[in-house]
């Protein structure tokens, strides 16, 4: 998602902080959505036991991996489109890591 957070050369202190804040917000929003989606897809709502069973645990692990992969795909696709609209140039694969290098 780095296309979301391209760093401008000269930013004021407030702008830099605001951008760092925005990145954290993005990560935390994604995490909240991931918890929502993966819990729904993997956890049996009859709640017969208080512990995650084997199937649920494996499902959750794979769900995170797939959610990241979807994020990467969507990010690449949008970046590709942003670039083709901007007339190419300014490479940068981006990748789907959530959040900045703080």
């Amino acid at each position, binding site marked *: 998602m780095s296309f979301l957070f391209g760093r401008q050369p000269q930013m004021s202190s407030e702008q830099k902080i605001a951008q760092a804040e925005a990145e954290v917000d*993005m990560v935390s*929003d994604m995490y909240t*959505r991931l918890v929502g989606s993966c819990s729904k*897809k993997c956890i049996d709502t009859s709640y017969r036991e208080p512990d995650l069973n084997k199937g649920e645990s494996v499902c959750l692990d*794979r769900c995170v991996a797939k*959610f990241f992969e*979807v994020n990467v*795909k*969507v990010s690449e696709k*949008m970046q590709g489109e942003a670039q083709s609209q901007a007339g190419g140039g300014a490479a940068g694969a981006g990748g789907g890591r959530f959040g900045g290098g703080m």
Partner: protein
Amino acid sequence: ANLTQAEQRELGNRMEKKQMKEFMNMYSNLVQRCFDDCVNGFESKSLTSREESCVMRCVDKNMKGSQRLGDRFQEQNAAMAQSGGLPGR
């Protein structure tokens, strides 16, 4: 709403932040929507090719959908503004 130039500028600054936020929200919505709609098997930890192409088409279609909805939304908003009906402005 009769804002002075200085007020307009301050509003503009706040709007910039909001737009960033909205774009991020739109992006996360898209990720979640396409994940929810396209990924339903957890036999492996990688997307199947079927899931992957579903995600791609999902992104495409939903972006076109939002675009279209946005265009219609603005038209309607403009039409309403023309027809008046908003006293006190």
